[in-house]
């Protein structure tokens, strides 16, 4: 459970060219917990109220002018962790059509005064609902009309902790680039992080700086020419994962405020190590389809998730997604490229040219607009450019010369 906050709800201060988060003091935290308690208590008593009514009631919780931003942020987080549902099962669009058409007929045939109640009763009879139910259902699809079904199952302390995490993410979401130093104890941890980054289709570079020491460079949402909510959401999911994976420091170049002023933001996370992590969950559907396809087995080819690390100059560490083997031949690695960086394909071509003994199939959607010709003269590895979706058959054709 979490949520993002808009920049106006992030408490920051600027020191020269550096942006800093304004942390909660002990007194502020105590007050934040009090406000969070009031919000959660109010929500618990508002079950069945419309979103609009809930927002109105929360507005009644008192706070000082200085606390307003904090309170709004806590409300936003509490509401996004609540469950709202449409008040009735009657389909509002169809219902409106029936009511308004009936009203138009009544008005056209009207002898005296337009009888609103009669119109609603007549339609109610047809759909098996009372007039009151009809009134509630008529605009139940509007923003603010949904009713509160469940308040967040959170303690006030947890809501405040969520607020602090959302403050941090709010700054990173304005990043052009993030550099993170990571301590990764073994190749399995590197692979896990790598797959997590790849699964979210982010633009990144991971490089080994020493034994177990890595530097991750991640392109932030503000690096894109056109702002993309999708990239921002994936990015926010990954930042938390990077911290949990063992980041010792993070530094971000951010564009802050209305004027998009370039500032630097530094963050030293408290050491957290995430528990056992099932990397299988982070597999793009196209790759899962390859793993599960019976086609390879029928041809005597064994397919599994790859475990090797490649070091590509200019790109850093690269972990192939899959490896294919057949009896008596060396493995062929397979990497599915994202759809945002053509540069990544060019760098891989350079690497493959310098490593003629490599046997890697790099697969790219035709939407990336790269040609297999960039691998011209490369021995061993190749680029598979596929139109539409990636199918086991297309991969099998590419594998034929290599296995």
């Amino acid at each position, binding site marked *: 459970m979490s949520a993002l906050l808009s920049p106006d709800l992030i408490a920051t201060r600027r020191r020269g060219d550096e942006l800093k988060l304004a942390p909660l003091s002990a007194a502020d935290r105590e007050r934040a917990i009090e406000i969070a308690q009031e919000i959660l208590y109010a929500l618990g008593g508002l079950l069945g109220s419309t979103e609009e009514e809930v927002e109105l009631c929360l507005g009644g919780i008192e706070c000082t*002018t200085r606390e307003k931003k904090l309170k709004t942020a806590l409300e936003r987080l509490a509401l996004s962790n609540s469950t709202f549902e449409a008040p009735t099962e009657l389909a509002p*669009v169809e219902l*409106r*059509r029936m*009511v*308004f*058409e*009936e*009203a*138009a007929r009544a*008005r*056209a045939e*009207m002898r005296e005064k*337009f009888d*609103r109640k009669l*119109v*609603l009763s007549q339609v109610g009879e047809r759909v098996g609902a009372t007039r009151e139910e009809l*009134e509630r259902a*008529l*605009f139940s699809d*509007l*923003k603010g009309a949904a009713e509160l079904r469940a308040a967040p199952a959170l303690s006030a302390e947890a809501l405040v902790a969520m607020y602090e995490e959302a403050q941090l993410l709010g700054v990173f979401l304005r990043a052009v680039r993030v550099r993170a130093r990571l301590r990764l104890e073994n190749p399995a941890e590197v692979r896990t992080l790598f797959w997590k980054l790849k699964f979210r289709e982010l633009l990144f570079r991971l490089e080994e700086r020493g034994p177990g020491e890595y530097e991750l460079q991640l392109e932030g949402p503000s690096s894109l020419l056109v702002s993309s909510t999708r990239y921002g959401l994936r990015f926010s999911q990954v930042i938390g994962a990077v911290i949990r994976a063992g980041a010792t420091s993070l530094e971000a170049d951010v564009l802050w405020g209305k004027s998009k002023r370039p500032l630097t933001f530094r963050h030293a996370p408290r050491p957290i190590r995430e528990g056992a992590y099932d990397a299988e969950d982070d597999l793009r559907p196209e790759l899962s389809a390859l793993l599960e396809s019976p086609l390879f087995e029928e041809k005597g080819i064994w397919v599994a998730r790859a475990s090797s690390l490649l070091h590509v100059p200019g790109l850093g560490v690269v972990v192939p997604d899959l490896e294919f083997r057949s009896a008596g031949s060396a493995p062929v690695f397979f990497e599915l490229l994202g759809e945002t960086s053509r540069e990544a394909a060019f760098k891989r071509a350079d690497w493959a040219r310098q490593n003629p003994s490599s046997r890697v199939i790099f697969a790219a959607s035709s939407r990336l607009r790269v040609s297999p010709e960039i691998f011209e003269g490369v021995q061993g590895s190749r680029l598979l450019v596929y139109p539409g979706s990636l199918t086991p058959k297309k991969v099998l054709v590419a594998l034929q010369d290599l296995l």
Partner: protein
Amino acid sequence: MLEKGRSTLVIAPTLDLVRQWHETLTRFFAIEVGILGGGEHEVRPVTVSTYDSAHLHMERYGNRFGLVVFDECHHLPGDTYSEAARMCIAPFRLGLTATPERSDGRESLLDELVGPVVYRKNITDMAGTYLAEYETRRIVVELSPEEREEYEQARDLYLNFVRSQGIALSSPRGFQEFVGRSTRTEAGRRAYAGYRRQRSLAFAPAAKLEKLEELLTRHAADRSIIFTEDNRTAYEISRRFLVPIITHQTKVKERTDILSGLAEGRYQAIVTSKVLNEGVDVPSASVAIVVSGNSSVLEHVQRLGRILRQVGDKRATLYELVSGNTSEAKTSDRRREHAAYRARRWRSP
């Protein structure tokens, strides 16, 4: 266009207008017409685009067209859209609008972006020929004593704060300054709540709604569009009179159904806030009822324009409901500062 062999780009502000241009050009010239916008991206020698898409893609396509038609060109002088005109090299340009005047005065930029005015005709000159004959009627209603008391209290709260802060509301940035300062203190927030309350009381007092009922009854055989300044009043009217509503929250399918329902006569009236001000073709509508609006001449003329499409011997009527002795009366005076509202009564062609 075809005679001179010039590729042409038509730019319009809304998807409704893009669709109308696309249909008309395809039918008239019997050619495939391209579209940019609304999820479509097909560039052809004759293409129709939204202003947003034109701005996004002009860098790439700005050298492809010899003629550019800017429909509703009063949108063009804005900061963003004007870039689209500058990035385009088309030597031939045509701007079309019934309402060139802008509240920021930037209509003077049209000379640079499109060219000088080559043809001008007032609505009043076209009424009865290209446009339907029309009349406009202002109906003044009074607040009830309870509404009046609440209105005065709310207005005092608002104006006392404005005075105490030395804000000149008549200055171009006066209102913006009020909004900015009202967020900083408790007194400011109360003043802003007062401003909103007095406004909403003037927008929809009981007497206006009673008058609206009367007008709907009187025009039960006509097609009417009810306009409001805010969505809240529009929804209140929709609930109370059970008339279909179109706002920014209305999905395309329902919106299309409501508009065709009005055209077919399934509905006699629909209510909307601002989304039908521009770019919607409702030829059958002959009555506009402005329950509330802002002081913009442009918006008021556009609302009138919705009922002026000439069909047969249609005669259109625009009613404006105004709460007497409130700030709305002044707002109404300001928005009527256009030739279209001067002494309009039925006139024979």
